[in-house]
Structure formats: C-alpha cells, structure tokens
C-alpha cells in the first residue's frame, strides 16, 4: 500500500519565505515554458504541417526563435485603450484571466514531492479557480465598448459556465475511484490500481473512459477553442472579447489562453493518465532521490504533450458549433452522460468492495 507522500518540497529544508519564493519561481517557470512549448510546437509547427505548409522558418533554425520574436513584437506595440472604454476594468481584465490560470499550477504534482502545496481538496480547488476566468472575460467584453466584443464576452460567459458542470462531473468518477480529492493520492491510487489482477496498467483513463472523453470535450470548451470557439469566432466577431486589446495586454491574454491549455492538459494527465507515475517507478517508493523528481516531471510533460496534441488537432480540423447548439450539447448530452458515468462508477465500487 503506498502511503500519502509527505515531506518537504523537493526535499529541501528551507525557511518558509525562501521556499515560497522558490515555489513561485518554479511555478512561473513551469507555466511559461509549458505555454511556450504549446505555442511553438502546436500553434506554429503542428498546425502548419496539418495544413501542408512549413510554418515560421525565418527566426532561428527551423523557426525556433519565433516565440521570442512574437513576445518582443507584442511588448514593443503600443497599448491602445479604446476611447469610450472603461479604462480601469479594461486594463484589469487580462490579469484576472491570467491569475485564474496561474493559480491552477499550485496543485499540479510533477513528482513525488514536486507540488507547490499538496492541498487535500486539490482537484476541487483547481476547478474552482479555473472558473474565475469567466469574470475576466466578461470584464474584457463589456469594457472595450465595442459591439462585437460585447457579444463575444456574453457568449463566453454562457459557454464557460455551461461547461463547468460537465468538467466537474467528469472528475467525480475519478475521485470516487481514487477515494480522495488530493492529486498526489489520485496519482498514488493509479499506481496501486489493480486492473483485472495485474498491477502495471493502472490508468484511470481505462475504467473511466467516458469521464476522460467528457473531460477533454469540456476542457476544449473551457479554452474556447474550436469546435467551441464562439467567443472568438474570427469569421464573425473578428477576435471576440480580445478585439480591442493590443500590446502587452493582448500578450497576457495570449499567454493566459495557452497556459490554461497546458494546465487543463496537465490536470487531465494527472487525473486520467497517471500523472508523473510510470510502472517502473514503483520499486523503492518514497526515497528522496533527485532523479525521481526529474523523471516525474519528464513523464508528466510527455503525457501533457500527448493530450495537447489531441486538443490542438481537434481545434484545427473541426468547424464551430453555433452557441445554442453548444448549450444544447452541454445540457442535454454531456451532463446526463457524466451523471450516468458517476452512477456506474458508484455501482462498480460497491460491487468491487463487497
């Protein structure tokens, strides 16, 4: 039986403040490198090859420095405020969105001790925090005094709230199976999970397949990506609630979007694909060797890239739902399916424990 993993952060004994600063720096690093790799690998390279073209090739060998070129471009652009915009709200909106994203990284476990704070209600906290971005989006939509942004903002509000429910219900199945909300314990649960008697293949994705599908669909909707990108429907609303933003604020929105994608993919990997755990890692459990952390992070990163590939592959192939079809799809199809999944998991758990 694998006990709960205690001990200090990364096994380093330091005063509270230095540890907090270290966690902040590492958390920021994980978020930015995660968002950056997603942007470069998927938005620049994979999309281009999907569309039989090469993507950016000029900046750096094979376009590798394109990301920094983009960031510099945005930074040196003038930060324009529309004339009739509500300046305070307009300025604060992107930071609300990025705040809700970065808070998710607090609970993502990258190794046996690699988690900023091992909250007992880990997954509930993560999902609660991720829904704050709705406020930011509404602020952006309303404050930019532009009819198209207003429509984009209202559509986003309707959609994000509608897809919170299936996201949460999809996770309930996993929590019931792992018996705890704590993400480390969920990872540990998958490590010990015996599927038909042999211990190796203990991913929750297999028994919870329906939950996994609903989670991915709901995550796609949370990120307002096609087929759910009504808020940023570039063929109607030009860029939805982000239309009036330029310069640094647009960069913050842009990073927010891809950091959320990385965070939700990480949550999906932890919940359904066994997080930082690999079958081989189970032997001498709990020793504080550095290699355990690094290998854990690499494993989680690989699983996240796999989920990221699926998310962006769907994004650049499928057309877009109209918002009433989108709502109908959520309320009439996803939520009942998620409830049925919980029911089945409950029955299976009772039968298994009897």
């Amino acid at each position, binding site marked *: 039986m694998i006990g709960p993993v205690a001990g200090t952060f990364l096994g380093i004994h330091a005063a509270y403040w230095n540890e907090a600063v270290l966690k902040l720096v590492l958390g920021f690093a994980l978020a930015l490198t995660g968002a950056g790799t997603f942007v470069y690998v998927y938005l620049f390279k994979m999309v281009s090859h999907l569309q039989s073209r090469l993507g950016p090739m000029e900046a750096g060998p094979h376009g590798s420095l394109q990301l920094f070129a983009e960031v510099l471009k945005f930074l040196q652009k003038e930060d324009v405020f529309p004339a009739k915009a509500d300046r305070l709200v307009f300025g604060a909106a992107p930071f609300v969105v990025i705040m809700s994203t970065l808070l998710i990284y607090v609970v993502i476990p990258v190794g046996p001790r690699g988690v900023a704070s091992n909250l007992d209600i880990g997954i509930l906290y993560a999902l609660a925090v991720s829904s704050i971005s709705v406020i930011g989006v509404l602020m952006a939509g309303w404050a930019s005094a532009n009819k198209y942004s207003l429509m984009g903002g209202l559509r986003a509000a309707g959609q994000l709230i509608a897809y919170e429910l299936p996201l949460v219900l999809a996770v309930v199945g996993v929590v019931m199976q792992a018996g705890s909300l704590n993400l480390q314990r969920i990872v540990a649960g998958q490590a010990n999970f015996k599927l038909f008697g042999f211990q190796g293949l203990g991913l929750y994705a297999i028994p919870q397949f329906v939950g996994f599908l609903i989670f991915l669909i709901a995550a796609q909707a949370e990120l307002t990506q096609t087929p759910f*990108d009504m808020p940023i429907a570039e063929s109607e609303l030009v860029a939805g609630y982000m239309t009036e933003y330029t310069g640094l604020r647009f960069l913050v929105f842009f990073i927010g979007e891809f950091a959320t994608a990385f965070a939700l993919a990480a949550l999906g990997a932890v919940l359904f694909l066994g997080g930082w755990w690999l079958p081989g890692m189970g032997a001498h459990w709990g020793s504080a060797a550095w290699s355990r952390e690094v290998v854990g992070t690499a494993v989680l990163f690989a699983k996240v890239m796999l989920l990221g590939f699926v998310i962006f592959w769907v994004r*650049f192939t499928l*057309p*877009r739902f109209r918002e009433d*079809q989108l709502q109908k799809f959520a309320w009439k199809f996803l939520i009942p399916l998620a409830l049925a999944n919980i029911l089945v998991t409950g029955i299976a758990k009772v039968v298994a424990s009897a």
Partner: protein
Amino acid sequence: MTATESQQRAYIAGQAAEARVNFALETEGMTLNVGPQHPATHGTLRIVVRLDGEQVVWADPIPGYMHRGYEKLCEVRDYAQVTTLINRIDWLGSFCNEVPFVLAAEELMGIEAPPRAQYIRTVLFEMGRIANLTLFLGDMAAQVGALTPVFYAFRDREYVLNLIESVTGGRFHPNFDRIGGLKDDLPKGWIDETTQVMRRIGEFCDEIDDLLIGNRIFEERCRGIGVVPRDVALEYGLSGANARASGIDWDLRRDEDSPLAWNHADWKVWTHPDGDSFARYWVRQQEVREASKIVGQLLDDLPSGPIRAKTPARIRIPRGETWMHAENPLGEMGYYVVSDGSPGGPFRCKIRTPSFSNVSIVPWLLRGVYVPDVITILASLYFILGDIDR
C-alpha cells in the same frame, strides 16, 4: 427536411413575433454594421443589421464600395480594350467573364471561332470555374470555423492558376480571348500536365468530402439554414448553384446550344431539393468534380487546326443588338451589347452579373436568423464584390 414557403414563413413569423415581444419588453435592439471591412464579406459589402439579442430583425445590404462604373467605361473603349476590362468583374474565374462578351461580338460580326479555339475556350472556362469554386469550398469552411480546408483549397488552386498562367500569361487576368478565337495556342506538354492536376482536384474534392460533408458539426451549422424555396429563387433571379440547390434543374451549359464545346463531354448537372446552405455547398462541390471531368474529356479529343479565324485588322462591329449569357461559376452572367456600327467600342453594354441578384435576396433571407447564421448564409450565397458593384 424540405422547407416549403409556408414552413419558412411560419419559422420567420415565430422568430419575428418573439422579437416583437422583446420590443414590448423594451429591450431595444442593437444596430450592427457587418462590413464593409469584415472577414465574412468577399470584399467590401456592408450590411446594416438590426439585432434583438443575437437574432436579426431586419438586414439591409449596402453595395457600392467597389463600384468602378464598368458600363460607362465600356462605352468609351473599343472591343479589344473592353475584354481587358471585363475580366476584372469576377476576378476569381476571370476567363469566364470574357467568353460571353466575345461570343456576343462574334455573333454580331457573324464570325465563328475555329473548333480548336472553342475547345480550348471551354477548357479554360472550366479551369476558371475550378479556380473560383475551390476557393469557395475552402472559404465557406473557414466562415463556419474549420481553418484547415482553406489551405487545401489554396494549395490545389495554385496548380490550376499555374496552368492558366503557362497558357495565357496571366494567373488572374488572362485576357486571352480575341474576337474570332484566342491569342495563342497551348504550350508543349500542357495537356498531360493538366490531366494530372485534374486528378489532384478530384482528390481535393474527396478530402472536402471527408472533412466537411459527412461532418456532424458542419451539417448542424448548415442544414436548414437560409432556406430558399424554388419560386422565391426565381423571383429574385438567383442563378447557378444557388438556383440548382433550390431544386431548379437549369444549367446554361447543357440547356443552351452555345458555340463552346460543352456538349462534346458527358457530365451531370447536380441539384438538391432542400435549398439550404448545405445544399448550396454540396452542389458547388459536385460542380467542381464535374468541371474536372469535362476538362479531362475535352483535352483527350482536342481537334487540331488554327487557333483564330480571319478577322479584319480594324474590328468594326456592324449595327445591332444581342444578348449572350453563359453559366459562370457564380451563376448566369450575360452581356447585352448594343453596337451602332462605329469603329469604337459598344454603344451600350449592359452587364448582367450573378452576384447582383444572389445578394438581392439577403434582406428576405436574413429575417429572424442568428448572427452566426448570417455569416453562414452570406458565405453559402457566394457572391463576389466586383460582381455586385461592377
């Protein structure tokens, strides 16, 4: 789900009634300007839309941002200069604009182009159609949200444009038609290059089939949206794929005995009973397939011989009037050429363009429709601004 006129009326009345109720509740509607700079309009068409929430209460398209006054210019230029002018009306399938005008002039002069020229004219006409409609197939997908088909469309369209350039010299404005035939003959090796490209266009249609036609989301977005019953289509003068999608079995290439060589190839005219956006998309996709078949067949039995009939050095069209129309990629395009026998150009040249009528149905079609559907309907009607504004 064939929507008859009554069903459409009931649907709109229901929406409008709902909208009026909201008026009663004093939720005053929002007037939105779709265009003139807007991603969904091919060029600069502005539509003033009055919204209640996300529903359109009434819409009023305002063309004229691209009005270049073609009919006035045609009156001060001579025939050779007018052919260079008119292939800028529908700039996507621009060879197809010259053909009706040159046929009209040839008919007035009583000249007949040699068979080889008619075959090559038909081949280039169909390649202009392919270049035009492949862009539509990609573009409508982009308006509905799928980003990838646009790139496939442009990739395969490049091959067709390169072929047109290797014959005529111009990718978009070939200006290759002369009264009495064509300017030049095909370069060596062009025919087998074209047959390969036509196979590639066939593959592109299959890709679109996989990507969109069977796609549940695409059907959800396009079926039953912007239904145009048959008689309303006739009343507004809808032509081409828009008419055939409403069940009108009419294609000028098959029904009129035009001097070009369409009747030497066997191909089908596809129609669809529903008359909604999906039907228009599907009919145009079949049109691209048929066009690639026509090009393949005509190039197999291309007659040999001169490329241009004997014409006097100074073209002098005798007095007379004629109406010549052809099945352009967008619909029925025709020229009413009045000549008064003077050495200059036509005395009066009425240019009937398909997009003008295709867009005039928009106020009727957009009532009680959601905003995203406005974009789908506009994309499915497939108009080009140069066509509307002339």
